[in-house]
């Protein structure tokens, strides 16, 4: 029930490319899983609260002080491309 058009929309949201045959194949495989997932509709959950987190904890804070941190060199170590100490990326603004 996921159309090829919807698959392409989702791919764009997910920053993934789907080419040619892949679109139909992906839409098909996902449709199969979504079909299975639809059985959740058999359950009446109108009076049930959603669980997003198992543990009964609220926001966890810490004191805003600098402890361990990476130096610049370490932060740049895995950079695919860098220039003058910055991560460089394709031009964004014309």
């Amino acid at each position, binding site marked *: 029930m996921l159309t090829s058009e919807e698959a392409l929309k989702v791919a764009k949201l997910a920053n993934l*490319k789907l080419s040619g045959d892949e679109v139909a194949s992906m839409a098909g495989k996902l449709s199969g*899983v*979504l079909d299975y*997932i639809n059985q959740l509709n058999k359950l009446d959950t109108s009076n049930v609260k959603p669980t997003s987190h198992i543990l009964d904890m609220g926001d966890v804070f810490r004191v805003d002080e600098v402890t361990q941190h990476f130096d610049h060199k370490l932060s740049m170590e895995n*950079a*695919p491309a860098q220039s003058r100490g910055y991560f460089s990326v*394709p031009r*964004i603004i014309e």
Partner: protein
Amino acid sequence: MARKLSSGEASSTEIVKGALERIDRLEPRIKAFIKVEREDALAEAKTADERIAKGEKLPLLGVPVAIKDNMMVENRVTTCASKIMENFRAPYSATVIKKLRSAGAVILGKTNLDEFAMGSSTENSAFGATRNPWNEKTVPGGSSGGSSAAVAAGYCPISLGSDTGGSIRQPASFCGVVGLKPTYGRVSRFGLVAFASSLDQIGPFGKTVEDVAIAMNAIGGYDKMDSTSVNRPMPDLTQSLKKDVKGFVVGLPKEYFIGGVDPEVQKVVRDAADLLAKQGARIEEISLPHTEYAIAVYYVIGTAEASSNLARYDGVKYGHRSKNADGGLEGMYSSTRTEGFGPEVRRRIMLGTYVLSSGYYDAYYIKAQKVRTLILNDFKEAFKKCTVILTPTAPTPPFNAGEKTADPLQMYLSDIFSVSANLAGIPGINIPGGLSAHGLPIGVQMMADHFDEESLITAAVAYERARTFPALSI
């Protein structure tokens, strides 16, 4: 092993050399490791021997351990079995690594997994599949297949895996070893590459319940670097090995013994119930009525959280970046991610993105969260009278490589008995129970209430001592 090291019967260097020889001999067939840290391990072993000679006493001093390659070890490559992280050098060590090192352990290397921990067979690795040491035509399970196989093959007594939907317990079952998933919040996730943040937990593999208890003692406990870590004292689980199951109520949920479950698997679990009853436990049939919906819930919540957690892999600051220059920045993102992620990862990101997208969020994600509450309530109700719950770990013995790769849903259904524990956040353990007619391991799962790893260890060791399980000699 720790005792032998401490008493001087064996040296860490000898043990690590032995492990490396065994790895050299068996790895071409098993492929449990992505990277064996040969020189570093020997150097660490040498240091351990020096410390032992000085009389230092630590629980794992000189003991070699293997680590699933989704946990960061500072200055070493952490791949997550993905091309997108192939050359990523970790800038810091995970808390569990720091804890293992404080306990004196020697890191042997990083083990193979399904890419980003997404899978149940370790066939989704970008660096090749791991094979089951019991029969190389079969899978070791997943996603922590490498860590499970490493212990089963005798490379090291302890390894670490991660469990989001069963990824420790299921491979433990398939490889005939003990594997434990702690209560959510028991073990720090700091430094574990996140898959689904409300489900992920790190846990140990070992040949025996005792080894797993020792490893849990080393890695468990509150960590302020993980905001989902729980500030409760970590019990000494080796004390739980000394207790017995007299008066334990062992629940057998009828929904786990339905038609589709392999009869050999059912027999091993029912025999386990008998063995526990003989030791003074009371067996009771219970119901976990929402069991059949657990996979559906898991594949909504898990993939939704994964789509969010994997959004960071965009080629900007680390990891693979596409050389395709089309489409500017956005083109870079999508080319990078499409090139770098394997098909299963891309499928799950797509599914997760869809269920979170506008118009579908309520119908899928919120709905799944509500059913998660129902599943959690099933367990809360059960633990009012049960001490532990006993079930199969996997619905079948280990399947053949390639058998379930054609239809993703078939693969997903192998998690049917393990996902509920992650959704409810309760601890679960696999204990090897017996062999199938084809000589393949079948495991037994036990689950306990939140933060009750103590009852889990006591019940597990009671079963382990009462049953016989053959050693694997390869």
